[in-house]
């Protein structure tokens, strides 16, 4: 919201206050001043002049000669190019010698042979309105020769306030003035009280021409209106327009501008209905009826919801309460009489309607946050007073009818909040002193009655003692609160609440072991040359389905786009996109890993677990270092990195063939390995399916893995105990077996282990060969077994015999042949 300094000074004594310092003080009290704009600087020498005569310029078609009256300053002939120059209008006149805000100095000059004695100005030239083309036409009461600044109420400052939702009371000049008065200890001026307008009599509940019926007093606790006739609608006086501009509002026309002024001043939205376009004699405040529609002043026709609170005349709704008026009763150029509504609507009711109809108006913004229901009469009185004054200034003879209605159904109880002694210190750690507390609160409008504070009707945000603590803290300044380090006994043990209100609530505190596991895991990846990626948890349903072979997702009701409309079930979606991105920018090696949550709708329970996954992709070269620079990465590189990872988190892994388990769709069916830790499967690793490499437009080879970190870390960590160092020499035997090419090493190993002899100590595969030197469809697996007798000398004959038996067992069971 923007607020004018001059307007503020009508309500609070700002004599001697410096605007910039005041803005800083407001910011440090919670009313953040986001920007400050200066209006009308450098126009001190500009005068009001009346154009008396306009004649053509003898030497130029586009120029004219204007004779202007500048009162006691004299009469001048000015060469003028503006199209809107015409006799009778009042315009700004810069006499010779004036320096305009844009730095131009007005000099006596001859333009195309005709001398010109000054300049008539546009709003743009005066720095008042960048869009203001043509001469600035001045409206309202003024005399030629008067200072322009005096007429427009300039110079002025405009503060742009960024208000938090709790400070509804500062959506009007009056509220900000109250705040300044408390902060700077400056008295409020008389004008802040009720408007004692002689034009308004005493309010009544009904009147001759119109009455109001409130059917929904919860939605509308107070409804008031006044009727003014004898108007002609037209341009507002210039001082009104300028005041609106300083408040960030575009001037429209007199009646509309008056409701704006009254709202900007009091924070209370008002609405003017064209009296002659209302039907019947009763306004009803009620819920909309099934099937009702209303065309708003924005010309959109809206189907109304029974929860919408509307103002209706006998022909139907004429406004959605507190949100927008209807076009049928809208004020227009022909309006001669108005009914000005000034009411209090329940914040949540207005908010629901505004959201339902996707409308956010100056009125709904204020009502949602809370408008002072105690200021309805003041705002209405002010609007009527301004309307009459402006109408008279514009030459009308307005008449305020006796129809001033105020139906007030508010609870008469004011909120009271107590502030026990010591309470402020107990929360702030700062002794403010009882007297100071009282003084601050009273200045903010909290009246101390019988040991409690009566909350002023404009403070919706105050209902508890702690709210008063904040008020005190704001005014004394947060900077006066000392800095004290809380005492920190190390390691307060986490204690589950015995009275935990929800059963079996998951413990949010992360065990140290798990935290450190995550750190070691990431370190291990980085040490292996992998880079960490972080992606948002949004997924593209189509791509996720392709990777996972599932169609059930947690879907977002209001996604930013289709490709971010579900929550991911695999981290590979994001990682593969990153591969594509990096390859398209020329990366020869992409090694990325990510840890993050995945979301399974089948977990069902609304508060279900979110498994933490780890995934990675490896694409392109195995290494960028020169000696390996031409070797493409393969499955073994990926598996090596994963094994290191297993050791880093102290839960070693092994790889198994999938056998009869279904392989996830993202995996190459011939390069899919189950990642096992402890007794179970924790994930998958392997080549990316060639179909995906193709359709995602990747450059192969691409290796990938994904594992469930929760399951992995749930495996018992490796246990360690010392082993005896052998004292007797061992003896090694090598063996090269020709086997079927599809036979996995794990099957061979399993057979060897099945006839493991106590003299066998170690098995190591040292060569795998499938090429010209072995038969088609066969491969050679060369391994070495180390034999040792831990208790004595190993006999060669024993080794020969045991090894021979092993070989014949393998030949028999695997169809193998020793090379």
């Amino acid at each position: 919201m923007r607020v004018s300094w001059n307007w503020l000074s009508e309500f609070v004594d700002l004599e001697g206050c410096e605007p910039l310092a005041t803005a800083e003080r407001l910011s440090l009290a919670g009313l953040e001043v986001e920007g400050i704009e200066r209006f009308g600087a450098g126009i001190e020498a500009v005068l009001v002049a009346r154009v008396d005569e306009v004649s053509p310029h003898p030497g130029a078609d586009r120029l004219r000669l204007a004779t202007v009256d500048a009162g006691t300053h004299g009469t001048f002939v000015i060469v003028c190019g503006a199209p809107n120059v015409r006799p009778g209008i009042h315009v700004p006149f810069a006499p010779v010698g004036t320096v305009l805000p844009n730095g131009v100095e007005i000099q006596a000059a001859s333009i195309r042979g005709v001398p010109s004695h000054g300049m008539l100005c546009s709003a743009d030239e005066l720095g008042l309105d960048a869009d203001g083309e043509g001469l600035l036409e001045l409206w309202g009461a003024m005399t030629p020769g008067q200072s322009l600044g005096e007429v427009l109420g300039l110079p002025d400052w405009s503060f742009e306030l960024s208000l938090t939702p709790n400070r509804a009371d500062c959506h009007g000049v009056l509220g900000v003035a109250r705040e300044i008065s408390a902060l700077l200890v400056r008295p409020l001026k008389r004008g802040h009280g009720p408007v004692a307008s002689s034009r308004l009599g005493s309010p009544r509940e009904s009147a001759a021409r119109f009455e109001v019926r409130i059917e929904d007093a919860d939605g509308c606790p107070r409804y008031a209106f006044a009727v003014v006739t004898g108007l002609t609608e037209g341009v507002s006086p210039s001082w009104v327009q300028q005041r609106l501009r300083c408040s960030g509002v575009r001037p429209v026309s007199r009646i509309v501008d008056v409701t704006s002024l009254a709202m900007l001043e009091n924070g209370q939205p008002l609405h003017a209905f064209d009296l002659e376009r209302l039907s019947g004699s009763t306004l009803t405040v009620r819920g909309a009826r099934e099937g009702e529609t209303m065309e708003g002043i924005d010309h959109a026709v809206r189907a109304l919801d029974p929860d919408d609170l509307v103002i209706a005349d006998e022909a139907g709704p004429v406004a959605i309460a507190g949100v927008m008026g209807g076009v049928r009763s809208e004020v227009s150029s022909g309006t001669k009489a108005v009914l000005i509504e000034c009411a209090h609507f329940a914040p949540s009711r207005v908010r629901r309607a505004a959201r339902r109809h996707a409308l956010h108006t100056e009125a709904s913004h204020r009502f949602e946050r809370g408008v002072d229901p105690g200021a309805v009469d003041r705002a209405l009185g002010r609007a009527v007073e301004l309307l009459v004054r402006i109408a008279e200034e514009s030459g009308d003879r307005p008449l305020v009818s006796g129809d001033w209605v105020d139906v007030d159904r508010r609870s008469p109880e004011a909120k009271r909040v107590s502030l026990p002694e010591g309470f402020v210190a107990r929360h702030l750690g700062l002794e403010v002193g009882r007297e100071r507390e009282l003084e601050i609160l009273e200045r903010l409008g909290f009246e101390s009655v019988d040991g409690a504070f009566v909350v002023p009707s404009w403070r919706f945000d105050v209902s508890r003692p702690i709210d008063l603590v904040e008020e005190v803290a704001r005014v004394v300044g947060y900077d006066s609160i000392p800095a004290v380090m809380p005492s920190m006994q190390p390691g307060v043990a986490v204690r589950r609440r015995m009275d935990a209100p929800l059963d079996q609530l998951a413990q949010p505190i992360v065990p140290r072991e798990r935290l450190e596991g995550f750190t070691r895991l990431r370190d291990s990846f980085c040490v292996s040359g992998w880079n960490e990626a972080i992606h948002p948890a949004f997924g593209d349903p189509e791509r996720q389905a392709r990777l996972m072979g599932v169609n059930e997702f947690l879907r977002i009701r209001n996604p930013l786009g289709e490709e971010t409309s579900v929550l991911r079930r695999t981290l590979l979606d994001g990682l593969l996109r990153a591969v594509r991105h990096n390859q398209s920018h020329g990366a020869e090696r992409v090694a990325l890993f990510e840890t993050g949550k995945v979301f399974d709708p089948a977990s069902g329970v609304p508060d279900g677990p979110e498994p933490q996954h780890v995934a990675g992709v490896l694409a392109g070269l195995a290494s960028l270092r020169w000696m390996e620079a031409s070797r493409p990465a393969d499955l073994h590189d990926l598996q090596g990195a994963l094994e290191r990872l297993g050791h880093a988190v102290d839960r070693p892994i092994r790889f198994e063939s999938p056998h009869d388990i279904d392989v996830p769709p993202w995996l190459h069916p011939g390069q899919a390995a189950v990642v096992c830790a402890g007794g179970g499967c924790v994930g998958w690793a392997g080549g990316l399916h060639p179909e995906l490499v193709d359709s995602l437009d990747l450059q192969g080879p691409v290796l990938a893995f994904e594992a469930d970190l929760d399951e992995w870390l749930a495996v018992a960590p490796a246990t360690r105990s010392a082993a005896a160092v052998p004292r007797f020499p061992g003896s090694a035997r090598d063996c090269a077996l020709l086997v079927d090419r599809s036979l996995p090493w794990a099957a061979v190993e399993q057979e060897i282990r099945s006839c493991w002899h106590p003299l066998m100590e170690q098995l190591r595969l040292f060569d795998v060969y499938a090429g010209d030197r072995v038969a088609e469809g066969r491969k050679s697996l060369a391994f070495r077994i180390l034999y040792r007798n831990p208790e004595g000398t190993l006999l060669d004959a024993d080794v020969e015999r045991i090894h021979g038996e092993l070989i014949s067992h393998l030949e028999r069971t695997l169809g193998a042949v020793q090379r």
Partner: protein
Amino acid sequence: MTASVSNELAKLVTEAREKFDSALTEDELNRVKAGYLGRQGAISALMRRMKELSPEERPAFGQRVNAAKDALEVALDRRREALRRERIQRAIESERMDVTLPARGGERGALHPLRRVEQDLVGIFRRLGYDVAEGPEVELDFHNFSALNFPADHPARDMQDTFHLEGEPDRLLRTHTSSVQIRTLLANQPPVRIVAPGAVYRSDEVDMTHSPCFHQIEGLFVDRGVTMAHLRGTLEAFAAELFGRSVGIRLRPSFFPFVEPGAEVDVGCVFCDGAGCRVCGQTGWIEILGAGMVHPAVFESVGLDPEEWTGFAFGMGIERIAMLRYGVQDIRLFYENDLRFLAPFA
């Protein structure tokens, strides 16, 4: 007879010395050595001819043969040492390498800059005695809003545009890590002090400083007798740790429904030491977090007595701090995972 054997011995020694010196490798030298000093060698053969001599002549002959043998051993050692040195020298020459070539392996990957910041922040608070807590990213309205004193139909909810789940009116993507405050207080008996890092979601339009997903770290400290002075003390200690030196902090009143009094917290600009620069918008201050005293309504919603317990909470954006610390201008770079962007964080 004696003379001929003696001559033969002398000849043998001379000949052996020549052959030793002409051997070019240690292997060749060993073969030559065997021809003279081995069991089948020339010297042994000469010894066997001792029986041809008279008993009187034998001791003197024996001594001469032994002397010759010793002399040969010396010559042999000398030659062997020379050859060994030559071999080492050759090795030194032939094994010369370019030590400036890049090593094998040893490339380090990058830890994501957001992770670096998260780890640093968590580390600071762990050293201050805080536990780490975490909560789900798909939250219930209760934990994310109502228990945090955001009433339904209240404009405070507009401060955080929310993603909702389809078909489940009560579930949403958490808009802040403050939901973990509620979970922690529901599960655990105070005193508690936790920090909770994690991803949060808001349906903001994407631009240089806004992303629909970003990361926060939340702090909560609840005990008996906690005051706003303790909040200030903690934040000062935190800022000094984060920036590695003492920086001023400034608290400005602000509004978050779950704290009262609430504050926005600025730190003195570390780029200009408060003089005013582009980073701090000429103000000398940089806003880095929101904080305040835990609102009594929050204690009530988790069933704790606000008369007994007080506490403070704070929260900050990890992206915001990473952008300041590493000079990142566009928040979207964090989620693109471009290796060229990540490389400096190895």
